[in-house]
């Protein structure tokens, strides 16, 4: 039990920081501490959370996916165009998610079988996908999708918004996948020691393709939420979101080198970043300062986790 505490100490720190941040914000702004505002934060976090779940698995496997922001735009635009063409909402959603998963599959396939660094592969696919969106739409938005699709973005089940429900489900799925399954174990091992995994007779390439496919699917779900919430598919939707997902994942304690990470850490980090954004907005502090602060937090957290890892490996 004691060791378990030690292993998860970073996650406890994250939740401590989250609590502290909540208390400070509640003291600073009278609007902060209300169900309505919390629901707002959860709703805002949902997109980043879903995206960060996929990113966490990819980074655990020692890879990176820079294309998730473009996949948000691509899957959102696919759904938007399908809906505009008269395809029923359910079918449009399924097709849009399949397209996102296919984009992830291609990323993984090129990384695994082309043996190319994932940074370069996904940087290329990011640019290609964004380019395709711009060509297809002539850089114009597609909007007005009707209530069934809109429900995903702004509908509520009881007092809870749909995006919140979706993000909770995805976090649960991600947590089980990473921590309980063979798939998650092999993801972590790919990041930890790919050579050993290969020698043990495990098809590493297959698992690389799978983890990128899952990440693509997560980006597709995020794209679905973004598009449904705005009731509009924007050509530049999701631009730069990959950086938020990477920031949340690394702040959450996942090692950039792979082999180590947790979903609960990513969830906590996601909330820290969004509570901060929300609180600072309530305090009418410019978003420009928020950017600076986000960067600083990320830098400090990486310094802490890297130095603790270095200490460990030196013993």
């Amino acid at each position, binding site marked *: 039990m004691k*060791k378990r505490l030690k292993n998860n100490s970073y996650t406890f720190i994250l939740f401590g920081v989250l609590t502290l941040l909540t208390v400070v914000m509640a003291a600073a702004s009278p609007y902060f501490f209300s169900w309505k505002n919390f629901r707002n934060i959860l709703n805002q976090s949902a997109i980043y959370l879903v995206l960060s779940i996929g990113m966490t698995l990819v980074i655990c496997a020692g890879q990176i996916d820079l294309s998730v922001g473009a996949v948000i735009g691509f899957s959102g635009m696919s759904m938007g165009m399908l809906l505009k063409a008269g395809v029923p909402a359910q079918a449009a959603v399924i097709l849009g998610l399949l397209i996102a998963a296919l984009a992830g599959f291609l990323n993984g396939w090129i990384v695994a079988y082309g043996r190319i660094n994932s940074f370069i592969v996904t940087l290329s696919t990011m640019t290609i996908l964004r380019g395709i969106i711009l060509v297809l739409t002539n850089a114009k938005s597609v909007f007005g999708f009707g209530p069934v699709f809109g429900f995903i973005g702004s509908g509520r089940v009881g007092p809870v918004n749909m995006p919140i429900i979706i993000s909770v489900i995805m976090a649960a799925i991600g947590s089980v996948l990473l921590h309980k399954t063979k798939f998650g*174990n092999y993801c972590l091992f790919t990041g930890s*020691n790919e050579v050993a995994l290969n020698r*043990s007779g495990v098809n590493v390439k297959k698992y690389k393709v799978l983890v990128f496919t899952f990440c693509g699917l997560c980006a597709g779900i995020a794209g679905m939420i973004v598009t449904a919430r705005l009731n509009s598919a924007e050509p530049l939707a999701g631009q730069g979101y990959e950086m938020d997902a990477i920031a949340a994942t690394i702040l959450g304690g996942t*090692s950039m080198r792979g082999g180590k990470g947790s979903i609960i850490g990513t969830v906590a980090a996601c909330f820290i970043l969004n509570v901060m954004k929300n609180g600072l907005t309530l305090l009418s502090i410019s978003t420009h300062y928020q950017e600076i602060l986000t960067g600083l937090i990320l830098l400090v957290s990486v310094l802490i986790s890297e130095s603790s890892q270095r200490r460990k490996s030196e013993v």
Partner: protein
Amino acid sequence: MNTKEVVITPFLETEDIYKSFNQVKALKGVSVNAFGGEVLAIVGDNGAGKSTLIKILSGVLQPDSGIIRIEGKEYKRLTPKKAAETGISTVYQDLALGNTMNVAANLFLGSEIAKGGILQKKKMREEAEELLKNLDIHIPDVTETAGNLSGGQRQGVAVARLVHKGGRILIFDEPTAAMGLNESAAVLKLIKRLASQGFAVIVISHNLPQVFHISDRICVMRQGKVIKELVTEDTTMDEVVAMITGASTTS
């Protein structure tokens, strides 16, 4: 498992193995035997053919001619998969473990206990403890991260994985290179213990004092040939050095 098995027929036998790489004749008719319950040391200078022989045994390379006999069954060549199935396992020095993963995960790598894709972690922990106990490898906590283990413990986990997968011939290539004194001692103890439990152990080493310390027999290779198989007790270090360098060939 602790009883010393007496095996008369060799566990592993090679007969007249030839292997060349283009013009270079790496092996020129190598015949060696390895028995269960003993440590066989293969010594020789660089380029004597030790590594080539080991690669052929583990199925990484295919011989040009010759026969590999495992428990009396003959093979013209082995693939890595076939070698593993027959029980030949090579203990890689440092690339075997995932440092960020725990002992149990490392031990069961590639043969996890899972139901419908869900890992049975509790069962894996229990079996890992049992397996390590049977092999007399001391690791206090199987949930410990492999990166925190000592070099000796790490080799222990690597060996336990191979044994779990059915390994019966364990090949160590320079097992204590780049290791501290205490750690080497632990690895050497592990090697002797494995032999006493009935495994056939082959050790490749440049470290002659170490070879004399752990081996039951010494096989001296020179220029692609086995020039002598010696019983460790009946020889001296000077004699072996003379054979390795070519100062004396056969006596």
